[in-house]
């Protein structure tokens, strides 16, 4: 129908529905655009900027930018690669990411992105910031050392769980995730089964007593890069 439009991504012409984001349209065509804050089922947020593409030469976040007829999108040029790689590195140095003892290691989307980008180590200096941990809740803890401020928990709690457990407070480098209580996580209505818990891409929100259950070698990203499922789905 006439609500179909077409555009070019990395020399390939693909069809899309009007109103679709570039990221979603590419995904339907089997093209993976790396992303972190974006998650199917949640409203687009556009904060991590890992999904940056060039649209007619101009950088845009593909998770919020809608498709338009005839646009030319670069998803795998050197420039795009370098921008994304540097953003991933920023997220590593901004927090304290100790993969060697993190429950999420092997299933962590930030780590998986770094693997996919072939990052041996961030080229930016580590900041070693002081962050806190909230382990007050009987079944869930928050480790802000690992938080990448993607806001998935904020959105999931509101949009999927019908609660308001999380929200951003502070601004600039002091921006952080806060909980809907004057005290701690245990004073909120969060339950272990909440979608907001499992939706965390990193190890910042973790269910207690289930860490390290999956052995090394069987974890999500042990053998294949993140996004492989999308790339395989259409070939």
């Amino acid at each position: 129908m006439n609500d179909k439009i077409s555009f070019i991504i990395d020399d390939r012409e693909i069809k899309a529905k009007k109103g679709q984001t570039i990221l979603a349209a590419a995904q339907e065509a089997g093209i993976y655009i790396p992303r972190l804050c974006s998650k199917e089922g949640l409203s687009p947020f556009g904060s991590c900027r890992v999904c940056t593409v060039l649209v007619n030469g101009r950088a845009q976040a593909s998770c919020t930018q809608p498709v338009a007829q005839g646009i030319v999108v670069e998803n795998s040029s050197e420039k795009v690669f370098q921008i994304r790689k540097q953003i991933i590195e920023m997220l590593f140095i901004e927090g304290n990411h100790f993969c060697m003892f993190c429950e999420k290691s092997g299933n962590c989307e930030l780590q998986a992105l770094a693997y996919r980008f072939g990052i041996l180590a961030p080229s930016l200096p580590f900041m070693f910031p002081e962050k806190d941990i909230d382990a007050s809740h009987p079944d869930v803890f928050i480790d802000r050392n690992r938080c990448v401020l993607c806001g998935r928990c904020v959105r999931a709690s509101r949009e999927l769980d019908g609660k308001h457990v999380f929200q951003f407070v502070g601004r600039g480098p002091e921006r952080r995730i806060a909980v809907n209580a004057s005290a701690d996580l245990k004073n909120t209505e969060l339950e272990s089964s909440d979608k907001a818990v499992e939706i965390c891409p990193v190890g910042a929100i973790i269910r207690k007593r289930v860490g390290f259950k999956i052995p090394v070698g069987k974890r999500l990203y042990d053998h294949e890069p993140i996004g492989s499922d999308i790339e395989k789905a259409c070939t």
Partner: protein
Amino acid sequence: MKKEMESTVKNICRDSGNDKIHLLDILRRVQNQFGCVSDEAIDLIAKSLNIPRVDVESTVTFYSFLSKEPKGQIVIRLCNDIIDRMNGYDKVAKAFREELGIDFGETTKDGKISLENTPCIGMCDQAPAALVNGEVVTYLSTDRAREIVKILRLTGNPKKLVQRLGDGNNAHELVKSMVQNNIRRAGEVVFSLAESQPNIALEKALAMSPVEVINEVKTARLRGRGGAGFPTGMKWEFTRAANGDKKYIICNADEGEPGTFKDRVLLTELPDRIFEGMTIAGYAIGAEEGIMYLRGEYEYLYNFLEATLEKRRKDGLLGKNVMGKKEFNFDIRIQLGAGAYICGEETALISSCEGFRGDPKNRPPFPAQRGFLGYPSCINNVETFCAVLSILDKGAGWFAELGSRGSAGTKVLSVSGDCQSPGIYEYPFGITIKKLLKDVGAEDAMAVQVGGASGQMIGEKDYDRIICFDDLATGGSIMIFGPQRNILEVVDYFMEFFIEESCGYCTPCRVGNVVLRNYLQKIISGKGEPSDLDFLQKLGENIKAASRCGLGQTSPNPILSTLKNFHPVYAAMVREETEGLQPTFDIQAALRDSEAITGRKSVLFIH
């Protein structure tokens, strides 16, 4: 006390109709009343407005005029922007510290006075300056600082600090401030309004159809005066054409760009005309409501502006059937900000108007499609509304003839820094930097920062370039640096400013600017290497490309423009280091704690 607070907070919320849209107003009042917005107050507000407490906390922790920790009854906010630093900030700061016996960020033991720093408060032409609660004190000296503390201690009343009133409406009954206008050059478009008869333009507009008004503005080739230069007529057209039960016209009076203060003067001298311009715009786009978003730093103008609105209402220039025009109902309200540069970004401004933290919104949808509360909204700069009046007064053709190709009309410039006559200058677009420097008395300028912190720094070889949208674009800020200044220190200040003012929403701006500044400081401290310059360039370009809003898309400009225009300054500071320890690694500093704890000196690194 607790009970008393409970009823006060509840009353404040009730005054605002327990409507969460007015959260920012409520928070400001609670802050003023109790010196903070405490956890208890947050709970009470959340309950009254029926919103999650974490959302209230989110807003409280965003704005620098709001705080969860208790502040003194009086808060002295000393402006520490670069111009104030060049005009003796350090000495004044020292005098305040000594006289109060506290450091910045602290409150006197009796809980009476807090001392804080604040970025540009729009007084660069009379720096150093400070805000004392709402009052503005200017041209500060060490003596004056000590005197201010004495008066505050004696009277507890910041109003007593105003001893001599400023010129023009600064002396108005409802303003009574010591601020000076410093209008040095009145031009044909904006300041000529002072002589023209009010409401003729509005009358003309109402005699036309809204589309005709828009066409007139389009014919005049008017572009937005905030700096980005989007064609005003198109913006109006888009908003008019957008679907929506209601539409909003918003005046962006949140000038926070360091070195800009022209809106301060326009709001002081031409408020009635600005509201007239907003009314015309409202008519053109089909809005019934206008909002003026006034930066918190200009609170001293609030009552005066409100009175101006009230008078317009009485005169039938606002309200039902404006000027007798059937079915044109329009009114304006003022939304005060609370100290956040980012709220000058139009989608952040909308967030703030809605009572939220000032995070910018994703675009699309653009405000013209979905803005304030989801309704089509048009945001224009204060000066843009003034230009509209002259266009209707004197004709689109007359206006389009003024200025340079692609940039019709005049621009009101805020000139500050190392020059003889800092102040307000209105020129037709197309004036060269050289001519400007001559007029303001700064022919020996080493560098000129055009467009504020987010603009660019140029040197002598570029002084023949012109001010216009297609060459040197500026929202009005012109900061001048004489030969005695250290360029890298200026750049470092701007980076500090951006880090402070970033909302932190997106990664490149939140993290990237901190990294940029760390590398810059490495270079300033003489520990930089040639490869660091290349690194700064690439990182800066990536931040510009990948950031979500205008703040991050321009924050690397101070570094990128000086790398380009003042490269030798950087080159002289870096050298290659291959052997030995990294220049940034200081073994003596790294061992200091250990030596103190163990009570012995290092045997490996003897010093």
